[in-house]
């Protein structure tokens, strides 16, 4: 009996040895270098855009003359001085982080995926991210790879001139996206039409109307082929997600939690945040006063409560953030034609469907008959059509009309927003602050 025990114990020692190394990756969690399908990484590149939505809304409308902040230090958005750095944690920091994460996810798809439409969508999202970064910060760091830890110490974080970001990243990425994507979108994914529209918009922001014209023409003329058309009723655009006027939107769902931990864009516009319970700027009321009978007035402004009811949140708080819609593209196209010397008639005719929808008479090209008058008419139309869509400030800056429209002397340093100070510290000063902050 004793011998049997000894044999049994001995056999335990023999059978307990390992045949393989103990260094194993957990089998149930995906590791970044074992992926074969990059769909999930591409979805992440879309998802990260969520973190840029509310900052974009606040910078686009509250920094401009559409909305006001009431409680310090949020009021720094309306004062054009160095104190805006106090808003870093809620706006510029999350905005910066989210967009670079979108860029890195897109880089991973572009580097590793073999699926052309995935690559096309990733290029669109990378261009969109850099376009937002450049509009907000000016010069920014360019990263076009997904780095390894070994690459971090030697990576050049120096901010590259905005012109280089446009010419070397945004424009080539959008050109690639145009050739790789289909004209129609599925489930709100990026399409060829979105890439054409964005490329046109990018050129307009660069002041390069010559290059903008063919892309905007493609977008306006090709919209029908991409199942995109103006909605009959202006208010409906902001009720139903992915309606026919939407070219591209960052999709928001209340069942998907994002990484941005502060008030959502629509709650700022609605005055739901205590920092600005009555955000409506009197300047926008005056602008609507100058457009009598405008059906867009009641959609955009609620004078009694001094707020914007534009996003009514029917069925829960999950309205998408519209990045590109047809009316925006048509207005950009009209502006481009005007700058390129097209006849008043040809330019103003483009505005007719937008004005008719708003309950207004078409503009008379025998009265508004100079380039300068048409330019102003288009700027005014943009303001009313695209109020509370995060566009106004960036339009004011690109057209050089910020001081005149807002009616204040603004140091041009404050056309840009401050780089998060944590970036300057973490890069040991290689990433520099914008002048004036």
């Amino acid at each position, binding site marked *: 009996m004793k011998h049997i025990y000894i044999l049994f114990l001995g056999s335990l020692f023999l059978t307990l040895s390992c045949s393989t190394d103990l260094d194993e*990756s*957990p089998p149930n*969690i*995906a*590791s*970044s*270098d074992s*992926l074969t399908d990059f*769909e*999930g*990484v591409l*979805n*992440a590149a*879309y*998802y990260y855009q969520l973190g840029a939505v509310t900052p974009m809304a606040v910078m686009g409308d509250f920094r401009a003359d559409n909305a006001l902040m009431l*409680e*310090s*230090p949020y*009021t*720094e958005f309306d*004062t054009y*001085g*160095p*104190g805006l*750095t*106090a808003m*870093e*944690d*809620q706006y510029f920091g999350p905005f*910066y*982080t989210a967009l*670079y*994460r979108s860029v*890195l*996810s897109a880089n991973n798809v572009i580097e590793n995926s073999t699926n052309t439409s995935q690559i096309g969508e990733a290029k669109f999202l990378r261009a969109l991210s850099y376009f937002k970064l450049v509009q907000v910060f000016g010069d920014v*760091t360019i*990263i076009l790879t997904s*780095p*390894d*830890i070994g690459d*971090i110490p030697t*990576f050049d*974080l120096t901010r590259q001139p905005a012109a280089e970001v446009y010419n070397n990243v945004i424009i080539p990425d959008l050109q690639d996206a145009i050739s790789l994507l289909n004209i129609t979108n599925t*489930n*709100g*994914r990026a399409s060829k039409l979105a890439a054409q529209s964005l490329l046109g918009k990018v050129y307009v922001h660069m002041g390069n109307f010559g290059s903008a014209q063919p892309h905007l023409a493609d977008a306006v003329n090709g919209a029908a082929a991409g199942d995109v058309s103006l909605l009959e009723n202006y208010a409906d655009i902001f009720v139903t997600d992915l309606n026919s006027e939407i070219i591209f939107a960052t*999709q*928001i769902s209340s*069942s*998907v939690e994002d990484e941005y931990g502060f008030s959502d864009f629509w709650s700022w516009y609605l005055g739901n945040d205590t920092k600005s319970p009555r955000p409506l700027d009197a300047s926008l009321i005056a602008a609507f006063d100058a457009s009598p009978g405008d059906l867009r007035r009641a959609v955009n402004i609620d004078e009694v409560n001094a707020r914007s009811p534009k996003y009514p949140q029917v069925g829960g708080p999950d309205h998408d953030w519209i990045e590109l819609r047809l009316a925006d593209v048509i207005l950009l196209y009209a502006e481009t034609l005007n700058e390129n010397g097209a006849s008043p008639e040809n330019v103003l005719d483009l505005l007719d469907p937008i004005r008719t929808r708003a309950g207004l008479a078409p503009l008379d090209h025998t009265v508004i008959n100079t380039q300068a008058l048409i330019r102003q008419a288009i700027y005014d139309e943009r303001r009313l059509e695209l109020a509370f869509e995060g566009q106004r400030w960036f339009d004011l800056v690109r057209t050089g009309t910020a001081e005149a429209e807002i009616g204040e002397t603004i140091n041009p340093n404050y056309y840009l927003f401050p780089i*998060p*100070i*944590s*970036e300057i*510290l*973490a*890069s*040991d*000063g290689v*990433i520099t602050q914008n002048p004036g902050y």
Partner: protein
Amino acid sequence: MHNESFFNIDFISLLKPRFSTGSLGSTSDLGAYNSLSLLNPQATVLGTGFLIPSDVANSNLTWQTNTETNYGIDLGFANNRIRMGVDYYTSDIEDILINQSVSEVFGTPSIRLNSGDVRSSGVEVELSAGIIRKENLSWDFSANISTVKTEITDLGGLDELPQAIYGQSGRGPVFRNYVGGEIGEMWGIETIGMVEDSFIEDPTRAIGVNSSAYYVVDQNGDGVIDKTKTVEEGGDLVKIGQNTPEFYYGFNSTLNFKDFDMSFQFQGAQGGDVWNVDPIYYNSEFGGRVRDSFDANSDGIADHNGEFYLDSNNQLDAQLQDASFLALRNLTIGYTFKPELTNKIGINSARVYVADTNLLYLWGDDYTSYNPEGVDTTQSDYLGPTTYGVQIGSSPIVRSFTFGFNVNF
């Protein structure tokens, strides 16, 4: 040593030199998968998304090694009624695991590295005495004091880790960790007083509001307050403090008188600082409270006295407070019933007592919150000891009273 034949000093009853050294590897707070980069699944509107791994893959992560060396001597006097121990220790941590902050361009706020060596050293002195040993009265007393000093001796080739602001919404000091310095030094802008309340634009806006701005020092006189560089580098940051105290101390006492017993324990720390965020919030110090005429041309200089000023939501030494404290951690008073009394009802022994914690708690004159020991480590950008020393609304010290009755059958 006192037993050796050559030792013949009568009043020293114990003499024992000690020396010890040892190395211990530890993985600190490293998770099981920290050396792998794992994709992070997340539901998105378009289906499952794989988010960027929260830690970038580092296959070289390894244990940090802590080598402790201790030199000590124990002394006893008067038949060991009085004992004293003195120790000098050094602790060298090699390959220390550090969260190093990196640019968000890389998709993560910090990476885990074995990136340096840290040396701590200090002296510990302990004294205990049996002061009274009588039949009805005995009193024992002991006291200790220890110092600790840490120095970063190497950062894997770097002179300094990337600086980081840790606090609430950017309200916090700049933490610096550099070779030759201590871990988690707090740096900031030197202030020379608060902007007077008479410059507040609208003092009726909220109760307890102050001007929320401080006059600050332009250290290098270049006309710019630079919050991102030290004076050495051409900016205006100076060292304002660190959380590690200069010394810790404590004393304990046990007293027995007839059937009564009493014991207490004091604990204290002296010389540490906390950067306290609380006053900014309860005084509604959000900046922009002063009148436009205070600085009519918005150049950052007060017009009436020519001093630079900054809002209190910056990295100012005005928020730095003394974290020193002395606490009566424990006080117990008890009475044991006489056995001849309790035995009659079949009880072996019975004791009633009251005990309390933190009955007495003293803190520094300039400390304004409720717990100088409370340091926040909960924010998502907390990097460990390299960013330790900020207080954000920490829970007050708990004072408790216990009444007890012990019975043994």
